[in-house]
């Protein structure tokens, strides 16, 4: 059954997923080429000086990409479910009340997390190709909130799409904007590191939203 759910979810999101893979690869290659170009045009010592001493975030163009990935995959996955109330088909499957939604959102969350993890690994490789590991570590810490925004964006977008009542949707959009904007607000090296744990906890909390919206959908709230 889990395999069948995964199959259905994959059918819905596959083209969006592939588009997001292309975007991620494109952005990573672009950053790598920019660094290579800089190293060639400027002396490497100057580039190191920009990055290490002047804290130039060479990866800043990635700021909104994880958020884009999360939101796009949630839309691809859940909009077809709410059109013509197709979600009723999924909820009518012989599974527990919340089980089917949890499986759907769990699968989507894993896809988003997997893609973002690969993107982070690719960026770590790029960073290590030109800089010492301390630069790579600070890059990871600086980008971590953006990647959390990707996961949070996925869960919150899913919650908003599944939510049956428009008034509540507007409220959720405002709430999501506030939370996600805080995560991608600044490009300051390791600025969020002290509060990273709290952001992780808040992101984990966003996973509950879609279950609550799904429950309201199931109970016929209009």
């Amino acid at each position, binding site marked *: *059954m889990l*395999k*069948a759910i995964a*199959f*259905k979810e994959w*059918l*819905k999101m596959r083209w969006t997923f592939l588009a997001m893979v292309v975007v991620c690869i494109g952005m990573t290659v672009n950053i790598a080429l920019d660094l290579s170009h800089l190293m060639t045009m400027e002396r490497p010592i100057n580039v190191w000086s920009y990055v290490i001493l002047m804290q130039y975030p060479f990866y800043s163009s990635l700021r909104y990409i994880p958020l884009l990935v999360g939101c796009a995959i949630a839309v691809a996955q859940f909009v*077809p479910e709410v059109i*013509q*109330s*197709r979600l*009723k*088909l999924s*909820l*009518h*499957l*012989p*599974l*527990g*009340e919340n089980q089917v939604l949890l499986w759907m959102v769990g699968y989507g969350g894993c896809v988003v997390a997997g893609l973002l993890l690969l993107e982070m690994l690719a960026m770590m490789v790029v960073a290590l190709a030109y800089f010492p590991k301390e630069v790579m570590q600070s890059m990871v810490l600086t980008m971590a909130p953006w990647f959390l925004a990707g996961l949070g964006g996925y869960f919150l977008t899913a919650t908003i799409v599944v939510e049956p009542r428009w008034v509540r949707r507007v409220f959720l959009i405002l709430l999501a904007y506030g939370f996600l904007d805080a995560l991608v607000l600044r490009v300051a090296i390791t600025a969020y590191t002290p509060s990273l744990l709290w952001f992780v906890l808040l992101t984990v909390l966003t996973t509950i939203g879609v279950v609550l919206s799904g429950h309201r959908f*199931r*109970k*016929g709230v*209009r």
Partner: protein
Amino acid sequence: MEYAVECKNLTHYYGKRLVFENMNFAVRRGSIFGLLGKNGTGKTTTINILNGFLTPAGGQCLVFGEDSRSLSPATKARMGFLIEGHVQYGFMTIKQIERFYAAFFPRWNREPYYELMSKLQVTESQKIATMSCGQRSQVALGLILAQDPDLMVLDDYSMGLDAGYRRLFIDYLTEYARAEGKTIFITSHIIQDLEGLIDDCVIIDYKSVLVTMPISQFQKEFRRYAFSVATPGLKLEKDDVIRNVELIKNHATVYSFKSQQEVEHYLTGKGVAYQHLQESPMSLEDAFIGITGKY
């Protein structure tokens, strides 16, 4: 007697608007039950309550003895559900959707599904979204038959279908249900299609239940009488004897569960100067319009 579905004192509101109040009916196992009513009288609302997609304001629905507000996976596996408009996963192909559903139902039998698909001019790799409404209806029906449920809940199966597809749908459904002893709960706008199909019915109107009885009894006991009156402007109120009245100039038609003699006696008692009162036969659709009215 064991019932597949029992609705007891079902009441529902949308905001402050009453949809129906204290609706009671029971669906015998192995029977075909029609929920009939005009647009907006609460047919889809009832089906949503039955499937657990709506919490009623009052009363309850039992499906195989289980409260519809929290149906167990085992009970859901025994229910086939056709959503109004034959909604299915349009992003899947004929083959993919069969493969998908097969994973959930232990009694899955793909034969009736592919038998129906073979009658359509489609290929296995065709996406459902690219099919006509009629073809989609057959996909939805084929999936329900393959599921082999004990109870089929079909919400307005006739929506958007031409006469050929409606006939195909009904023929398959009837043959399957009668042969396998399945219970069907059906709603439709096209009342004439249900004639000869359904065993029992409940007819609902805005806010109220008009009739709950076997369809044969309804067709036998519900009668139409036409007569002329000397002067236009006849005023007759609906009551226990006269269930509906239509008046065009000097020609009146009344609908009643009473015999001709009782209606004549009633009219005389009301001082109506009627002439040429005659009972005229009715189809199920005539009877439906007769009891619900044209407006």
